[in-house]
């Protein structure tokens, strides 16, 4: 599965052509801003969020026989409510004015989104979706964030070792492990962990590890809380790490190998610099760039995969809420959670790209991506 991703970095390199900066004048400043990497990147992120928000609006609101219509029809036939009051109820639930023309509804929906109003849950009456989202979001961010940090740093470290000791026994073992792990989907890994580690060998108590916290534990800045949070998140984190580490090991191995042949490394060796300093400041810093470009793709994959992983482990994060809302046909929650997951992925991508432009000055100076 790592095959096609490897070319992303090359693709970027091809597009990297430098544009000479011109100075002076207000128009030039404006042009400079418009051409700047940060600005282009922000516009791209905003457009993506906007497109996803529109897509969900039209899916939920306009689909013939879609959620809103189905909800109204259900109220009318099942509870004998008049069509008018059913429409009113639906309107308040989806925070939409159903009598207004579609474009006005659409604008109002977008306005509500900007204010953070995502409507109310159908199942837990009167609970705002934004409140539900906020209470589950931290757990997903915590588990995914720590997993990505662990797997990226360990993967890049192992990849470097593999390149330094290439063709050794360790290299062969790790390369095979890496390609095997990256060929197994993360949820299959999750099922295997539950079935073997949890049920067959009884190494951990799967049922006690469910949820995001043990009953009675209060969030706070103390060891009990942090330990318990880690205990419950450990299996999801392990699964995400196993699901992503292979790609980084293999990319890092390849990029370190080519960096080792670069002139500046030879020069650094000739200057008599210490091995350790060459490995970190010269080889590692440059070789880590290609795996870093994979980060944005992995973020989307892992965030998306959290739907399955959180369901498997009954870890109460956003993916778990999304699954439940789809099962219960709780459309406002479904829509809200989906939009938040998408926004989080886009934000994380933005952050990764900005970090990348810090690490690789060519991107910033080039002003194009």
């Amino acid at each position, binding site marked *: *599965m790592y*095959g*096609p*991703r490897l*070319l*992303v970095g*090359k*693709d970027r390199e*091809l597009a990297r052509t430098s544009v000479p900066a011109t100075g002076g004048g207000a128009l030039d400043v404006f042009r400079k801003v418009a051409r700047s990497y940060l600005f282009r990147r922000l516009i*791209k992120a905003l*457009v*993506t969020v906007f*497109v*996803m928000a529109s897509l*969900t609006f039209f*899916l*939920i609101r306009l*689909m013939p026989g*879609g*959620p809103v219509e189905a909800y109204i029809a259900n109220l009318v036939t099942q509870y004998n409510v008049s069509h008018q009051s059913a429409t009113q109820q639906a309107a308040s639930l989806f925070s939409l004015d159903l009598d207004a023309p579609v474009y006005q509804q659409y604008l109002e929906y977008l306005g509500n989104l900007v204010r953070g109003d995502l409507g109310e849950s159908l199942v837990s009456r009167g609970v705002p979706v934004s409140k539900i989202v906020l209470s589950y979001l931290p757990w997903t961010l915590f588990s995914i964030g720590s997993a990505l940090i662990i797997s990226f740093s360990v993967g890049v470290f192992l990849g470097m070792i593999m390149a330094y000791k290439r063709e050794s026994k360790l290299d062969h073992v790790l390369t095979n492990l890496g*390609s*095997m792990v990256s*060929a*197994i*989907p993360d*949820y*299959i890994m999750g*099922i295997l962990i*539950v*079935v073997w580690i949890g*049920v*067959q060998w009884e190494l951990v108590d*799967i*049922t006690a590890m469910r949820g995001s916290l043990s009953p009675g534990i209060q969030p706070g800045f103390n060891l009990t809380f942090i330990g318990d949070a880690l205990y419950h998140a450990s299996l999801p984190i392990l699964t995400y790490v196993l699901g992503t580490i292979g790609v980084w090991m293999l990319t890092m191995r390849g990029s370190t190998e080519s960096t080792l042949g670069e002139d500046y490394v030879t020069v650094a060796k000739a200057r008599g610099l210490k091995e350790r300093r060459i490995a970190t400041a010269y080889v590692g810093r440059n070789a880590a760039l290609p795996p870093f470009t994979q980060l*944005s*793709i992995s973020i*989307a*994959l892992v*965030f*998306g*995969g959290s*739907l*399955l992983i959180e*369901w*498997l482990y009954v870890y109460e994060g956003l*993916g778990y809420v*999304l*699954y439940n809302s*789809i*099962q219960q*046909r709780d*459309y406002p929650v*479904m*829509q809200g959670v*989906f939009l938040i*997951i*998408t926004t989080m*992925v*886009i934000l994380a*991508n933005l952050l990764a790209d900005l970090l990348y432009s810090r690490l690789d000055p060519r991107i910033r100076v080039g002003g194009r991506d």
Partner: protein
Amino acid sequence: MASVTGESRYRDSAVGRFLAGFASTLKLMARNKVGFAGFLVVVTIVLVTFVGPIFVPLDETVRVSQIYKTPSLSYPLGTDSEGKGVLSQIIHGGRPILTIGYLAAVISTTIAVTLGSLGAFVGGRVDTGFTWLADMVLTIPQLPLLAVLAGVLSLNNKFAVAGLIGALFWPTLMRATRAQVLSLKERDYVESARALDLGTPHIVFREIAPNMAGYIAINFTLAVTTSMYAVVGLTLLGLVPLSENNWGVMLNLAWTRGAVFSKDSIWYIMAPIAAIALHQFGLVAMNRSLTEVFDPRLRRGA
């Protein structure tokens, strides 16, 4: 090469030429042992799941006394929670999953190659637009979107599921194809074809396409693995209501009926996982052979 004389014998008919080409491709594939083994595994799984159901009836008898039996002569893969044989379920359960997986891969590969080569060839605004679209689709969390779509539209049509998956999984290959075409465009032989004024169709189909074939074939197999990942994931969650029994449904049942927490159910759970994993590993291994078949430089070295 030895196969050249064999080829010339059949050159008179198109069928003969095709067979000869097929035979020499197989010979080339067999050079890489791991790759050939992968190829055989994939072919076996496809044959068993598509042809097997004709010979092996689906076991639908409930046997209360035979629940969660370990493998025996009459039940080679053990039995499930109702005493039905697992092997017959595995044989019957591959077709829907594989159909969707391969179909979605065809769709996503077609989109990717078309947009990628078109963008690289035409350039300018078209290229920028396609790249933007690819970047956008790439940042969408695909599985949640598929799940939401499955919740809003009732996805009980195999082709609809394959279409949706195909429409979401093309960006990585599209970007790669674009980069590839961009670099191929600048090669000497393409430049000389252009200087000779051989025309765009000739350049695309005779000069560039043959160089891309291997790349596309390899990425197609990878697309199959990603599509399978999505289908099995969605069926595991129970969001794609495929009425037939299949590997994903087996896993879903194991989970929802709590079989997973019973130690005896191990054969029932591991059977579909092994089937899926074997198929995925087979495809990944097969790529080693495919690389050699399509890259003459590697071939000569072997």
